């Protein structure tokens, strides 16, 4: 036993020696410097700060564990190096309290990391109801974005010095929650904006989503945005501040996977609204298109005003709990549950049948009859009919001429 306490003592002595070492202490005193070293610039999304803090927490914890262990390894290996004619002196070969301690203490710490990680994740995944929703579609090898009013992007960054493929620019408003609803038209892709510390895979036949809220740009390259492209664009003589963030495709998708990139351009909200209206073009907004499709294809069974019909009404349905025939209900903790449920019901009506409208649904599958953007439009319209659908579209879009 005394040997074991010797060992613990040696450990303590080693530790104190370590902790007084200068460079470590200096680095610990200036967390901003560490952020810069690892990330180049702080996260540009309000929800990503938890993630960065957690990363640095794990980093410092790891440095501590690593340095202590390596110090002991080298220290003991030198101190107890082999000497001819001498053998290792006896010492205990196990020590139950010590072993329990070094099992349980890490467990506590890891539990903390897990909870923190889970919270940060939920924060980044579950968008507030009033978020502006942008449909992102991945296709070999480019991204397209569709805004609530039907606007798409026609602007590309000049890639003559940075790559060989076209690089679209997606405008988003600063200081306002924005939600990306992501899907793919062919193989897997992944929509990653490193400056927002967030990505989700783009999967065919399925929606995933994430959101962010980025500070409005001031056009000045200051400390908070060091290394990030920030400046002014000139629009009709006005100077509009902007900040650019890379989009990378993070799931291998073939030949031009490495150049399936794009730019998220954060601009002040007033300018963004102008831009969106100006870019809307002649087409219909998704909600308008959805309303039209509803009228021609769905209205015979689904009312939009709450009245009863063959199928459930769309009025105030989105976001509410729903139960199914054969047991089970929609998992509302999943932010994409409703979107995916609507999509699934359009394509495979029998997969989940609304309680009271079954056991088999009367509906025919629309698979192969609707284009991806038409399905997205129906989902958007469905959502706009609910008071739990979030006010986003109504706010973001100038009221549709009725």
């Amino acid at each position: 036993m005394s040997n074991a306490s010797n060992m613990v003592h040696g450990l303590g002595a080693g530790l104190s020696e370590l902790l007084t070492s200068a460079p470590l202490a200096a680095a610990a005193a200036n967390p901003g410097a560490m952020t810069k070293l690892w990330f180049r610039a702080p996260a540009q999304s309000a929800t990503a700060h938890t993630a960065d803090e957690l990363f640095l927490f794990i980093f410092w914890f790891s440095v501590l564990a690593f340095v202590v262990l390596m110090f002991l390894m080298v220290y003991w290996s030198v101190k107890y190096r082999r000497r001819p004619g001498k053998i290792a002196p006896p010492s205990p070969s196990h020590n139950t309290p010590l072993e329990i301690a070094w099992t349980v203490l890490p467990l506590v710490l890891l539990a903390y990391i897990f909870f923190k990680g889970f919270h940060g994740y939920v924060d980044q995944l579950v968008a507030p109801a009033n978020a502006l929703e942008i449909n992102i579609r991945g296709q070999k090898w480019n991204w397209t974005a569709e805004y609530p009013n039907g606007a798409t992007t026609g602007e590309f960054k000049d890639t003559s010095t940075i790559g060989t493929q076209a690089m679209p620019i997606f405008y988003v408003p600063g200081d306002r929650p924005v939600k990306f609803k992501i899907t793919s038209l062919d193989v897997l892709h992944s929509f990653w904006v490193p400056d927002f510390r967030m990505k989700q895979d783009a999967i065919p036949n399925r929606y995933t989503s994430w959101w962010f809220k980025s500070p409005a740009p001031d056009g000045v390259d200051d400390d908070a945005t060091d290394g990030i492209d920030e400046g002014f664009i000139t629009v009709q003589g006005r100077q509009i501040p902007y900040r650019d963030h890379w989009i990378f495709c993070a799931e291998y998708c073939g030949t031009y996977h490495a150049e399936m990139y794009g730019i998220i351009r954060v601009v002040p909200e007033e300018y963004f609204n102008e831009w969106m209206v100006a870019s809307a073009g002649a087409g219909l907004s998704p909600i308008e298109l959805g309303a039209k499709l509803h009228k021609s294809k769905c209205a015979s069974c689904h009312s939009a005003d709450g009245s009863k019909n063959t199928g459930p009404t769309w009025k105030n349905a989105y976001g509410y709990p729903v139960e199914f025939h054969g047991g089970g209900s929609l998992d509302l903790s999943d932010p994409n549950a409703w979107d995916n449920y609507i999509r699934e019901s359009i394509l495979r009506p029998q997969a989940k049948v609304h309680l009271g409208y079954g056991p088999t649904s009367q509906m025919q599958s629309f698979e192969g009859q609707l284009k991806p953007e038409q399905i997205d439009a129906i989902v958007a319209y469905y959502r706009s009919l609910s008071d739990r659908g979030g006010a986003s579209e109504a706010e973001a879009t100038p009221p549709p001429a009725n």
Partner: protein
Amino acid sequence: MTTLDARNPSLAQEALPAHERYKHGHHFRNSADEFDACKTGFWLFLATEVLLFAGLFVAYGVFRMLYPEAFANGSHYLDWRWGGLNTVVLLISSYTMAMSIHHTQHGRKNAATINLLITLVCGLGFLLIKFIFEYAPKWEVGKRPGQFFFYPFSQDAHEPLWWSVYYCATGIHALHVIIGMGLIARALVRLRMGYYGPKHYTFVELTGLYWHLVDLVWIFLFPLLYLIH
């Protein structure tokens, strides 16, 4: 050198049947140890087989959840009577397999032979029923997997997927039946040559284990594919 020392009979032992002369592998202490080791190893192998089929069962479960109506239609296309008949055939063969081991252990070579033969015939019967009365008629009318599907009266867009799962699961099972029959044939030939008897019957026993597994997998496949609508 190897476990086949029986092939080099010494003159004095010439008169004994091969299974009496059997000598265990030189790296085992005795033949009981060797028998134990072979059995442990074979059980591990059976575990890998179970896991292999587990993958197929999971795929079945997932797609059943995704496309319930395609899978309900699918099982309506199958005739439970053929499936049931095949179940009975396999159950009988499992019984005769077990009996053949029992007879080998007690040195009743002829009884063991007859049982093995019946097992073999049952295996063949299973395959014939499967191919002639199940696969062939379905394949002809276009009830085929994935891109080969052209059945004109299908009621659900995802029936091709049902057929994919059906053919994969039953096809891989049929492959196991064929392999099992190969093992049984080997056991049969070597039994006649006198290699197996009360003191040495490892291979027959392992073949039996394998055959029971094949049977067991079918016992799960049958209700999942034929009976649940």
